């Protein structure tokens, strides 16, 4: 399903536009695809380029500029629920493929073939070849593919896009440990990244003997190795359903509550005692 823009002013929805053309323009003059008849809006204010499921917004040197999520942009790679502001008007970008995909079988995400390759010239200017043909088990994509070549050509002119950097700062830093996720989304809502399952509650290990006695290590990373490389190493993994200890290398295996482990991963429980290369430590949950 194509992405949409919802035009509103002062919270009142005025109109909804489907991004079903490779290039759509926004402006005051009547020939634009999205006409906003207001003097603060330039004749041709901005354009949106759509390649299959990705859309890019570009300010066409407008007098009053374009904002996305509160930051002024020149070019912007649109992400689901981005809010584009032109004067007093707001355009909300909706492209919730994730939800749609969950509902409509998994066919949507399957790898597909663009039959004829899009040839890139050395200078980086795309020279489009018609990507006709058959996509295994995928009728819907064929329709969008037919739109492809002109889009690529129009890119020659528009160049490179970047997401607005200020968005990254919108993440409250306090949340970082709780999001010990492999993805560092650069936008507040990063719909293209998979939904992150809740990570296990924060836990730590505290060393109970030896020179580092009392030292505490928060297990914020998904993977932490303990021990001496080449002698004895074990790894602690943080997974959605808990923490696990697994032997990595060395002749000796770690012990858990006095019992020597085998090669299999073992789930850690609150206040378990780990023994590894002569060092004892206690595992416990912090929350």
């Amino acid at each position: 399903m194509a992405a949409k823009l919802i035009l509103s002013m002062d919270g009142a929805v005025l109109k909804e536009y489907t991004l079903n053309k490779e290039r759509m323009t926004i402006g005051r003059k009547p020939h634009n695809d999205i006409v906003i008849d207001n003097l603060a809006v330039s004749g041709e204010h901005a354009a949106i380029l759509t390649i299959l499921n990705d859309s890019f917004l570009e300010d066409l040197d407008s007098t009053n500029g374009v904002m996305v999520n509160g930051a002024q942009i020149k070019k912007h790679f649109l992400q689901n629920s981005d809010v584009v502001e032109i004067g007093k008007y707001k355009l909300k970008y909706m492209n919730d493929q994730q939800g749609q995909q969950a509902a409509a079988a998994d066919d949507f995400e399957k790898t597909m073939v663009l039959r004829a390759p899009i040839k890139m010239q050395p200078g980086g200017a795309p020279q489009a070849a018609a990507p006709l043909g058959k996509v295994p088990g995928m009728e819907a994509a064929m329709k969008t593919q037919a739109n492809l070549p002109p889009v690529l050509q129009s890119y020659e002119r528009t160049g490179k896009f970047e997401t607005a950097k200020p968005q990254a700062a919108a993440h409250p830093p306090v949340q970082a440990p709780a999001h010990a996720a492999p993805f560092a989304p650069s936008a507040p809502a990063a719909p293209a990244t998979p939904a992150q399952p809740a990570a296990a509650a924060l836990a730590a290990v505290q060393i109970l003997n030896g020179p580092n006695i009392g030292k505490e290590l928060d297990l914020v990373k998904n993977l932490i190795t303990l021990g001496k490389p080449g002698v004895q190493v074990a790894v602690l993994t943080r997974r959605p359903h808990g923490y696990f200890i697994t032997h990595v290398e060395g002749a000796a295996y770690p012990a858990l509550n006095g019992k020597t482990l085998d090669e299999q991963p073992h789930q850690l429980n609150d206040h378990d005692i780990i023994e590894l290369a002569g060092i004892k430590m206690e595992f416990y949950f912090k929350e």
Partner: protein
Amino acid sequence: MNVQEAIEIVSQTSSGMVRSHNEDSVIYDASCGLVVLADGMGGYNAGEVASGIAVSVLSTEIKHRLESLRPEDKNESGEEIGVALLRENVRKANASIYSAAVSQPQYSGMGTTIVAGLFYDNRLAVAHVGDSRMYRLRGETFETITRDHSLLQEQIDGGMISKEDARLSKNKNLVTRAVGIDAEVEPELHTHPVQTGDIYLLCSDGLNDMVEDDDIGTALQMLRANLPLAATRLIEMANDNGGRDNVSVILVKVNGDFAAPRGWLAKLSSWFKH
């Protein structure tokens, strides 16, 4: 030492958390230093059929040919036999898949990606088609040594989208080359010098779509002493992040030198072998 003694190989595959069946195929043969991974596509079970044909054609044909040929030698056109074998057999796999797809309606339109590596004479020849990847961990550096044949990669190359933004793209699953969908295919081929201590990772996009490259690299670095555990962990990471696709990995660790013997004795024994 010979290649079998010099390299350690493990592989693992999982259908993931969402898909009911696994369309990936992996195969390796340590005796001739060959690793092959394919990610099939097509309705019903056609994806499995396509990737299965691809890995079996490559492994049986190359193994058979290497009984009488040395991969480091050059053929009549001056190309290394190892490289030529990869090219020929990706084409052969293409022809088999294509003819099955054309002759049997249930297989119509099936195809597969492929990434294959052949280790010989302290080198690695790599062939690939589509978006299955090969990565290399050397020291602290973890990087891809193949470039996807995908719309997204072409957008990156064309400067339309930055590498960082590529993760946000919704055009991830469009490959521009695949094995078996046309009468002919052109695999991309490269050779790379190999160093002791290198770890090579072959994977289907079910891994690199779900897990950031940095996290894959970190896991490999931490678990380099235990290759089977590293493979398990990579699959777990993809599945813990949602596992929306089949995920397969092959890991190859280079434990020693495997330069081809070059003295008169080697020549003599190779002459007898012929």
